[in-house]
C-alpha cells in the first residue's frame, strides 16, 4: 500500500533519460472508479502529468516513471480540483465527516481507504470529487 501523503514532494524521475521531471504536487482521483488516475508533477511554476499506468516504482526517495505528458489540455487535473488530500469529506446525506488526512492506494492505483481523521472510509464508498468536497456514500447509520 502506498500513502499519497508520503508521496507528495518526492522527486519524479523519468527512467529513460534519468532526468528529474519535478516533484509530486498533487494527485487526481476518479471517484466513481475509486482510483487515482494521475500524478501532478510540479517543476517551478509549470506542471506536467503522469498517468498512474506510467509509474514504474514508488520508492522511499523517488518515484520512477516511464513518461510524463503536458498538462495544458487537462486543466481540471492540474488545478487540484481532483486532488484528495486535505479536502473536505461530505457524505451523500449532506453531513461532514472531516478532512482527508491520507489516502492509501494499491499498486494499480485503486483506493483502499481514505483517512478522514475521525472516520476511515473504504475506497469503494467514493462517489465524487471536486473543488469543494470529496463525496462518499453515507454510512447506513446516517440515513
Amino acid at each position, binding site marked *: 500500500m502506498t500513502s499519497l501523503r508520503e508521496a507528495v514532494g518526492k522527486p519524479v524521475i523519468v527512467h529513460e533519460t534519468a532526468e528529474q521531471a519535478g516533484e509530486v504536487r498533487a494527485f487526481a482521483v476518479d471517484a466513481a472508479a475509486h482510483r487515482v488516475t494521475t500524478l501532478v508533477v510540479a517543476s517551478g511554476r509549470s506542471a506536467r502529468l503522469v498517468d498512474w499506468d506510467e509509474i514504474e516504482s514508488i520508492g522511499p526517495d523517488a518515484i520512477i516513471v516511464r513518461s510524463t505528458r503536458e498538462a495544458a489540455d487537462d486543466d481540471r487535473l492540474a488545478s487540484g480540483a481532483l486532488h484528495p488530500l486535505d479536502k473536505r469529506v461530505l457524505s451523500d446525506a449532506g453531513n461532514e465527516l472531516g478532512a482527508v488526512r491520507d489516502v492509501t492506494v494499491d499498486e494499480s492505483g485503486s483506493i483502499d481507504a481514505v483517512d478522514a481523521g475521525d472516520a476511515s472510509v473504504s475506497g469503494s464508498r467514493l462517489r*465524487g470529487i*471536486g473543488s469543494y468536497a470529496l463525496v462518499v456514500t453515507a454510512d447506513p447509520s446516517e440515513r
Partner: protein
Amino acid sequence: VTVYLRTSEIIGLPVVTVAEGEDVAEIRDVVYAGEGGMLLGFTLNKRGFLRGRMREVLTADSVTAIGSAAVMIADAQECLVPAGDAPDAVGSPATERNVLGNAVLTEGGVRLGTVTDLVLAVGGRGEIIGYELQREGTKESWFIPRPEQIAVSGDALLVPASIEEYVSHDLSGFALAVGRYSSEAKSSEGSS
C-alpha cells in the same frame, strides 16, 4: 432516520453535487406550504465573492439529501431550474408567510412566546413540523409542534390550547413531543 434541523441552520448551507463535489449554490431561503408545512424547495444565492440571488431555484423533488453540512443534489444542470420554470410556490414564494417574529397565542389567551425559528424534519419528504419560540424576557427557547389548525395573521399565530401540553425545551424532547402530538392531539382535533 428523521433529523430535525432549524431552518436557520439550513440557510447558508452550500448546495453540492454528489458526482462532481462542487458547491454550485447556497441556500437563500426555505420555501414550504403554508398549509401542511410540506417542504417545497429553496431559493438560492450564488457562492463565493459575487453573492446575491440566483435566478435558479431548487425544488424539493430534486434534492438528494439535506444534511448538517450541505444540501446534496445529483446534477446542477438538471436540479437547478430557472424560477420561471419552477412551480409558482417555489419560483415566486409568497412573502407574507414569514412567521418569524410573530407572537404565538393559544386559543385560551396564553402568550407562549415569539417565533424565532422553524423546525424542519429531514428524511424522506421534508416537512415543517414545529416552531422554536423565545419566551419574553428570558433567553429560554421552547419548541412547539406545528398544529393542524392554526390561524396566522402576520402579527400572531393562534394555536389550540392543547398545544401547551407538548411544549419542550430541546430538540430531542421535541422529537418525542411531535410523535405524541401527532398520535393524540391531531386525531382529536380532526374528530371535534
